[in-house]
């Protein structure tokens, strides 16, 4: 399968037709989409028109941009004007946004061709896509297993070759965990480096958009296009996104790599930790120094996250009241209408988190739960900062296991939440982290290794990822 880097270079040089590239991918969609269910909505017609337009521009001597002719799949919680955006929720079924997310505008302006909106756990709450109101996505490596989540459709779309790159959102691991389970690259950039304008909000202090791709270089290319300041997002950092691509071949000679002790023990499968140790060996062989390091406060990450994220969600999801958009269940009074609409429109996991967040924010519990959780964020940030005084990057598993069977964890929310134990701490700290495929587990399914870096440490994170990618091939 072609990489985004190759497609863009070929289309810009007039050696590849954007329309032919698109058709190659759509053929694979025709063959496997019924089985995989990566998409909630395909936009083939618009994609063909866009690709035809790009070919015409190239023929006229224009350069359509760094992603010329690259098909992209978009998580269905990114607003797209004129195209349904459901968040895989009944409550937004049929909603067509009146505006487009900044990241999508930037992709299109760079010549990318959106092919459709991908499935997710409802409102990005989950780790398997089993919480989608429209049915789960299946893992292209083994269709009896989950693709991970919440961005399972975006991960599966890349793994199945439906698109070379896709976008997801990551609140507690929703890009990295499905990337690991589907054997692709997935990046959560530093909080504030990628605009959230047009991303349907879940946990606003945690949410960050990022790419999936088959290669590290493709992820870098997409991030350079979507990243950088956006005046429309008040949490957007000033300045442009650092140039990552030009450093991909810099290597790791002299870099200090720390393996996070707390993420290598209880609850993590032995075949997964073995792959992390193999990754560390590969980095050492490439000239890095590797040691174990304790980041103690990360053990409190899960508890803090399941207070902070639901608290923010309970507030963000208050807007779904049947008044301005989406579905309405009529009733005699406005209050009854809102209750009937929300009761019918939200699935169980969303209700669970709204209630948990409402509880954590309510009088009498605020200090004990939400207030404490915010202080734990400070502890986690502090312990990471201490580790980054001695290390350039950290290494851990992305997910505690390889892809698990459908229904395995749906009855026990706590068991599902434990999937994100290694990914959550970086969201709480606002740091970047990415998952790189690094071989397979005992069951032959992909294992992802997580590379963590300090805030704005994307260059060193990508250098490390590129060495891992090169050594596993």
């Amino acid at each position: 399968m072609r990489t985004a880097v190759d497609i863009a270079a070929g289309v810009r040089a007039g050696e590849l037709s954007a329309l032919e590239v698109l058709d190659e991918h759509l053929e694979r969609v025709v063959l496997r989409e019924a089985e995989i269910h990566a998409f909630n909505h395909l936009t083939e017609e618009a994609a063909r028109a866009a690709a035809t337009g790009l070919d015409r521009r190239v023929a006229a001597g224009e350069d359509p941009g760094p992603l010329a002719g690259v098909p992209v799949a978009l998580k269905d919680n990114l607003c797209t004007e004129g195209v349904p955006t459901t968040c895989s929720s009944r409550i937004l079924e049929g909603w067509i946004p009146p505006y487009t997310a900044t990241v999508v505008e930037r992709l299109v302006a760079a010549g990318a061709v959106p092919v459709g909106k991908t499935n997710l756990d409802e409102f990005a709450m989950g780790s398997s896509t089993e919480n989608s109101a429209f049915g789960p996505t299946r893992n292209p490596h083994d269709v009896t297993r989950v693709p991970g989540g919440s961005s399972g459709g975006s991960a599966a779309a890349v793994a199945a070759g439906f698109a070379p790159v896709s976008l997801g959102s990551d609140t507690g691991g929703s890009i990295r965990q499905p990337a690991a389970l589907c054997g692709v690259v997935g990046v959560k950039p530093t909080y504030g480096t990628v605009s959230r304008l047009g991303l349907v909000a879940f946990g606003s202090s945690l949410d960050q958009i990022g790419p999936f791709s088959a290669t590290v270089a493709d992820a870098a290319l997409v991030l350079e296009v979507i990243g950088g300041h956006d005046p429309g997002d008040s949490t957007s950092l000033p300045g442009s996104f650092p140039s990552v691509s030009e450093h991909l071949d810099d290597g790791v000679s002299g870099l200090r790599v720390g393996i996070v002790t707390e993420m290598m023990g209880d609850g993590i499968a032995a075949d997964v930790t073995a792959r992390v140790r193999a990754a560390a060996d590969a980095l050492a062989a490439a000239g890095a120094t590797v040691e174990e390091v304790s980041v103690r406060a990360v053990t409190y990450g899960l508890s803090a996250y399941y207070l902070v994220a639901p608290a923010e969600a309970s507030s963000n999801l208050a807007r779904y009241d049947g008044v301005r958009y989406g579905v309405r269940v009529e009733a005699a009074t406005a209050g009854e209408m809102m209750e009937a609409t929300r009761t019918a429109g939200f699935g169980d996991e969303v209700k669970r988190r709204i209630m948990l967040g409402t509880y954590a924010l309510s009088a009498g519990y605020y200090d004990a739960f939400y207030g404490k959780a915010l202080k734990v964020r400070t502890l986690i940030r502090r312990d990471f900062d201490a580790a980054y005084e001695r290390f350039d990057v950290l290494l851990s598993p992305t997910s505690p296991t390889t892809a698990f069977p459908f229904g395995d964890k749906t009855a026990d929310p706590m068991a599902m939440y434990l999937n994100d134990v290694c990914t959550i701490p970086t969201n709480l700290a606002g740091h970047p982290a990415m998952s790189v495929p690094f071989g397979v587990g005992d069951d032959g399914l992909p294992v992802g290794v997580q590379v963590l870096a300090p805030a704005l440490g994307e260059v060193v994170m990508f250098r490390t990822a590129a060495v891992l990618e090169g050594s596993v091939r």
Partner: protein
Amino acid sequence: MESRITTDDVAKVARLARLRLTDDELDRFTHQLSDILDHAADIEALELDDVEPMARPVPLSNVLRSDEPNDPLDRDAVLAAAPSTEDGQFRVSPVLGEAP
């Protein structure tokens, strides 16, 4: 074993969040929320009086745009997505006179 959260608590929270639960759901959610709060007991036990809370990762505050008119969303496009509208406004059932 005593539950961390009672069915009365969950019923109250559901009411605040405008969600209606069946009796079965009330029992199930009480159980599940209790499990999650049990897990959170580890941070409840931490002594954190001297630690500053961190509400967001980026220390930006009061970010303002320049005070100039810009293009708002088109009203008709926005209203087109609403379940019910009238005279250029969102339409809902009566609010006043509703029982508390």
